[in-house]
């Protein structure tokens, strides 16, 4: 079973996604569950404020939603999960994507659109009560601050490691602004505007390849924090919509090239194994390198897979985006299927075709070299990877696996077209392109997260409005709310602290946020489970969906909830005892509190289900 040609996986993935979109998305979710109508007024029109509630073109909104939900998750998660072989991660991405992730995203958007554009957390009040709403909102706000901290750090590290990615990012923003000004201010058509900015982008790409921009990690954290405050407070039509629309072209090119690459080399066989074992070493999220938990084969595929692969299959963050920025820009209910369900399938395609497939192909460097006759080892040496000391791709860190895999797949493909002479330069060029795409995803998620934290903050304090409208206005002012979240995020991303690891006897230096970051994987997926349960309860209680369709929604939601809850309890038992005391207090206590809240919310869910049924 190991000798699988690239083309087979490509055809299977595209066929499954196509069928899922039409048969499950269109026929069941849109027509039977949501009963979407083009005649219903959406919150973008009803509550238009020129800042957050602004209708967007279907494709612009698709670009925004896709670029916002695709952070680093759909790339690093599947890359890490490859230690189980490529079969299990691919199966999980396909199953999770179609039956859980895409359903979760679509229902979050539509439930929000039917409730005036409020978040899925506030919708929980209608089906689970007020307590659930505030627990949920506080939980999400803290998670978003953590996302900000992590993404300040990831983006800053990416810009330091690949300084040309910094150049293209800095050039990208004014180009996106030009598009917005052309279309909104001068009446230039979207088509003409797109052509103009794509030409500018191509020039910017070639410029960036040759002119790196250098700053230190700490300086980038400050610049990105200021960027995040400004970008999240500005009207969506001004920066967010044009930026994400243009960004979608970059991301589409990235996925499109992965598909074209596979079509050029259809006959090549994966050099990696389909299955390595159910419990793989080195996959435990949050376990420290060199410790027993970090190297022991205790990461059982079930229940830990959702803690490893997030965005590519499903992620709680998506429900916050869907019911946060996306639902407020939806101009027609019929657009939501492409944006929500289609956006998530695109993200799954990204994980399957641009991450899992290239890594599976390039897994064994010597086998790839002998199958293609290309100088794989000397190309790898150019980026400091010794193929003799590191013979297989899973010995590299998660993000490097993706960059090397994507670069090698593209280089092999284009060498077949233009001859072996282009192999090394193609490898280096496409590896850089992959880093740019990663930076593009991260930057979009950065300011969207801050905007979402602002929304959650505002809803969290809505009880204050009837008591003191002035205090409520001051506390939830868009600049104040943005600054509070960013300052907390930056404080966690900026400083380095020294941590003593008793098990190894060594002191290691880490960024402060990493102390609590291991908890994020679990809390984010718990959020996905709870948001999906809320959405299915919304379908049951408000939409009156019953019978087989209701079960089709409810069973995957319950499966996810059980998986994540067992996964978190497993994490507390198997991983936390091996962590240094600081991590035990930081990440351990967050997960413990999450499990308690989880159980509390499931009680409220069951009560809500009972009340809706009676």
């Amino acid at each position, binding site marked *: 079973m190991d000798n699988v040609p690239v083309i087979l996986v490509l055809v299977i993935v595209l066929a499954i996604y196509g069928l899922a979109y039409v048969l499950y998305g269109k026929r069941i979710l849109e027509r039977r569950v949501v009963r979407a109508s083009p005649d219903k007024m959406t919150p973008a029109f*009803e509550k238009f404020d020129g800042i957050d509630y602004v209708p967007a073109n279907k494709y612009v909104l698709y670009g925004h939603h896709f670029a916002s939900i695709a952070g680093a998750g759909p790339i690093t998660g599947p890359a890490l999960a490859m230690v189980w072989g490529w079969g299990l991660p691919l199966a999980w991405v396909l199953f999770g994507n179609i039956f859980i992730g895409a359903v979760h995203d679509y229902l979050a958007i539509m439930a929000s659109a039917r409730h005036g554009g409020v978040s899925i957390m506030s919708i929980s009040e209608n089906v689970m009560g007020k307590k659930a709403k505030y627990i949920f909102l506080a939980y999400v706000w803290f998670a978003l601050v953590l996302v900000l901290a992590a993404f300040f750090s990831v983006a800053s590290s990416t810009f330091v490691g690949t300084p040309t990615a910094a150049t293209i990012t800095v050039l990208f923003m004014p180009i996106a602004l030009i598009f917005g000004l052309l279309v909104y201010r001068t009446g230039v058509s979207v088509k003409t505007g797109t052509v103009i900015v794509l030409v500018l982008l191509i020039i910017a790409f070639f*410029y960036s390849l040759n002119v790196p921009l250098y700053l230190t990690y700490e300086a980038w954290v400050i610049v990105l924090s200021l960027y995040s405050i400004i970008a999240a407070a500005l009207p969506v039509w001004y920066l967010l919509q044009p930026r994400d629309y243009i960004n979608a072209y970059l991301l589409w090119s990235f996925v499109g090239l992965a598909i074209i690459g596979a079509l050029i080399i259809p006959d090549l066989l994966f050099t990696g194994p389909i299955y390595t074992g159910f419990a793989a070493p080195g996959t435990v999220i949050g376990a420290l390198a060199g410790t027993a938990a970090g190297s022991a084969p205790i990461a059982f595929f079930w229940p830990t897979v959702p803690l490893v692969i997030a965005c590519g299959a499903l992620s709680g963050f998506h429900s916050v985006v869907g019911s946060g920025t996306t639902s407020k820009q939806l101009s027609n209910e019929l657009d939501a299927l492409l944006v929500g369900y289609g956006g998530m399938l695109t993200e799954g395609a990204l994980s399957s075709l641009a991450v899992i497939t290239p890594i599976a192909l390039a897994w064994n460097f010597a086998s790839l070299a002998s199958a293609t006759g290309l100088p794989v080892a000397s190309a790898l040496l150019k980026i400091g990877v010794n193929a003799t000391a590191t013979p297989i791709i899973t010995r590299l860190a998660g993000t490097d696996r993706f960059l090397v895999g994507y670069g090698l797949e593209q280089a092999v493909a284009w060498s077949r077209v233009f001859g072996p002479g282009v192999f090394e330069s193609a490898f280096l060029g496409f590896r850089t392109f992959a880093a740019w795409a990663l930076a593009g995803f991260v930057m979009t998620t950065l300011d969207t997260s801050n905007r979402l934290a602002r929304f959650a903050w505002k809803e969290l304090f809505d009880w204050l409005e009837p008591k003191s409208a002035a205090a409520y206005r001051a506390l939830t002012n868009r600049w104040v709310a943005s600054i509070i979240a960013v300052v907390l995020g930056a404080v966690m991303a900026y400083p380095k602290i020294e941590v003593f690891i008793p098990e190894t006897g060594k002191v290691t230096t880490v960024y402060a946020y990493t102390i609590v970051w291991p908890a994020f994987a679990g809390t984010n997926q718990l959020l996905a489970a709870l948001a999906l349960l809320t959405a299915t309860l919304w379908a049951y209680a408000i939409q009156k969906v019953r019978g087989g369709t209701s079960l089709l929604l409810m069973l995957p939601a319950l499966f996810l909830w059980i998986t994540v809850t067992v996964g978190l309890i497993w994490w507390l038992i198997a991983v936390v005892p091996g962590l240094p005391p600081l991590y035990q207090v930081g990440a351990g206590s967050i997960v413990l509190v999450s499990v308690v809240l989880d159980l509390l919310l499931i009680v409220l869910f069951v009560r809500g289900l009972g009340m809706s049924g009676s």
Partner: protein
Amino acid sequence: MRPKEAVGLMVTVLSLLLFAYEIFYVGLVTGTIGIKGQVTTDALLLSTGFLLIILGPALWLGEVPTNLKKLIEAKTGRKLG
């Protein structure tokens, strides 16, 4: 022109000058902006330009575009100020 718009125009011009100097002069002449591992004036100027270019036009042209206003008014029947 209102004070906010005048400030926005000034910020926009300043950011464009910073961008033009760093991208077309420093970048093209030296082949790099900044020095690895250091915080240099050039890199700081470009970063400042990057932030100002986002803010400047928003202050200068910050009103909701007319075609968007018309769309909302037509669909909702609500008169926007």
